[in-house]
C-alpha cells in the first residue's frame, strides 16, 4: 500500500472532520433561558447531541482554550457601567482617583483601559465577571500602596444609561468592593 499516494485523501478526510466538528461546536443553539417553553426539548436535545459529538475532542479544546462560538463585541446595550476608584484618609471624605470617561479623574488610566484588565471588571452584558472581586482586591490594595494617606479604598460601578450617543449617570452603584489597609 502506497501511503504517500493515499495521503491527500486521508488529509482531505481529516480536514472535513475538523470542519464538521468546528461547525458543531459553533452551532448557535439558543440559551434555554431565552427559549419558549415548547422548545425546551429541542434545545436540550441539540445541546446533548453537541456534547456527545464533541466528547472525543473536548479535552483538546479545553487544553488549548479554544472554541468556535465567537461573540465579537456582543454587549452594546443602553444599560452600561462606569468604574470608580476611590480612597479615604483617616480623617476625610472619599477622594475620587479614577472615573471611567472622566479626564479630570484619570489615575491608572492606561492600566484600566488595557484590554486584559478591562476584561476583568467591565461586565459582560449585565453579568459580573468571575475575576471581578479578585481584581478589585488587587487594585484597591495597590491604590493604598501608592497613597500612604489612605486607610480605605474602594471600587464600584455606577450604572449609566446610553441614548443617542451620550450617557446619563444614574447615581445607582453596584459591585462595591472595599479594602482596609492591611498590616505588613
Amino acid at each position: 500500500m502506497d501511503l504517500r499516494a493515499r495521503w491527500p485523501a486521508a488529509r482531505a478526510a481529516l480536514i472535513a472532520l475538523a470542519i464538521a466538528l468546528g461547525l458543531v461546536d459553533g452551532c448557535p443553539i439558543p440559551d434555554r433561558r431565552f427559549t419558549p417553553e415548547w422548545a425546551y426539548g429541542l434545545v436540550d436535545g441539540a445541546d446533548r447531541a453537541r456534547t456527545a459529538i464533541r466528547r472525543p475532542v473536548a479535552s483538546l479544546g479545553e487544553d488549548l482554550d479554544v472554541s468556535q462560538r465567537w461573540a465579537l463585541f456582543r454587549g452594546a446595550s443602553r444599560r452600561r457601567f462606569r468604574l470608580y476608584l476611590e480612597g479615604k484618609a483617616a480623617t476625610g471624605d472619599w477622594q475620587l482617583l479614577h472615573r471611567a470617561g472622566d479626564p479630570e479623574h484619570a489615575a491608572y488610566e492606561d492600566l484600566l483601559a488595557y484590554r486584559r484588565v478591562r476584561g476583568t471588571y467591565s461586565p459582560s452584558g449585565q453579568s459580573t465577571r468571575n475575576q471581578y472581586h479578585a481584581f478589585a482586591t488587587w487594585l484597591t490594595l495597590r491604590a493604598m500602596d501608592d497613597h500612604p494617606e489612605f486607610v480605605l479604598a474602594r471600587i464600584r460601578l455606577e450604572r449609566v444609561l446610553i441614548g443617542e450617543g451620550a450617557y446619563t449617570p444614574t447615581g445607582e452603584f453596584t459591585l462595591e468592593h472595599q479594602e482596609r489597609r492591611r498590616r505588613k
Partner: protein
Amino acid sequence: MIRLGRAWIALWDRREPATALAAVRIAIAVVLLYDLTMVWRLDLIEPLWAMPPDGYATGGEGRWAARWLGTDAASAVALWSIAVVGLIAVATGTLTRVACVVVALVSAQLAHRAPDADRGIDDLIRVVLIVLALSRSHAVWSVDAWVLRRLGRPMPPEIPAWPRYLLFAQLIWVYFSGGHNKTGEEWGPAGGFTALANALADPHFARFDPAWVGPIYPLTRAATAATMAFELGAPLMLLFTYYAATADRPGRLRRWCNRLRLRWLWIGLGVSFHLGIALTLRLGIFPAAMLALYPVLLLPGEVDRLLRRLRPGG
C-alpha cells in the same frame, strides 16, 4: 458523489506560493508581541497571571504550567518570557513550527490563569498558531528557509495551500458566528440599530468624549446595519472568491459578482470596519489582529502583484 469526493481531495491538495501565510505569521506575531510588551510596560505581568497575593489570577491550578512552574510571580514572568521568545521565533521564522505550538500552549495556560483577561482575539490567535504550525509558512521570509538554503536543501517555492484555505474559512466563520451571536436588540431593527452609537458612548470603550456621536447619530445606525450585513453575509465571500478564482468560466451570476467587485467590496468593508474600530474604540489588539489575517483572503496571484507594487520601482 465520487466526483464530489475527488474535487474535495483535489481542493485540499493544491499548492501555492508561501507569501500569504508568511505575511500572516509575521503580522500575528508582531501584533501579539506588541500586546505582551504593553503588559510589561504597564507592570501587569504578575498582577494578571500570578495567584494572590502577587496578582489576581484565579485559575490554572492542576495545569502543566502550575505543576512545573507554580502559580507565583516568578511563574507568571517565566510564562510571559517564553511567550515573548516564542513570538520572536514565530516572527523571524526560527524553528517556526515548534515556536507556534509553544506560543499556543503558553497562551492557553495564561488564559486558564486569567479567564476574563483572555479575550476572543486571543482564542482566535491560538487557532491561527496551530494552523500555522501545520503549514509551511516558513518557506519564505524566515531563518528556517535561509538555513535550509545554506544547507543545500532549499524549501520548495510552492507550499500546500490548505492551511490558508482553513484560515480563510476560520475568518469567515468568526464573522458569521459573531453576527448570529449578536442577539441584543440594539444590533437589529427592533432596537433601531443603535449598537455602534452605544459602544461609542460607553465610558469603558470610547476613545473620545461622546459629544461627537450625537451629530452623526444616523450614520452610526447605518454603520451598525452595515456591520450586521457584513458579518451575516460573510459566507458569501466563499462564493465571491470562488467566482474570482474561476473568472474564465461561464455563468451570469459569476460575471455579475466579478463585474461589481463584490469580493473587494466585502474586503473593503472589513478593512473600514476594523480601522473605524481602531480609531474610535479602545479594543486593544482586536482590529490589528483581525487585519493581520486578511492576506489569507487574497488569491495567490494578487499577493504577488501587491508585493511587486510595494517593491521600490515596482
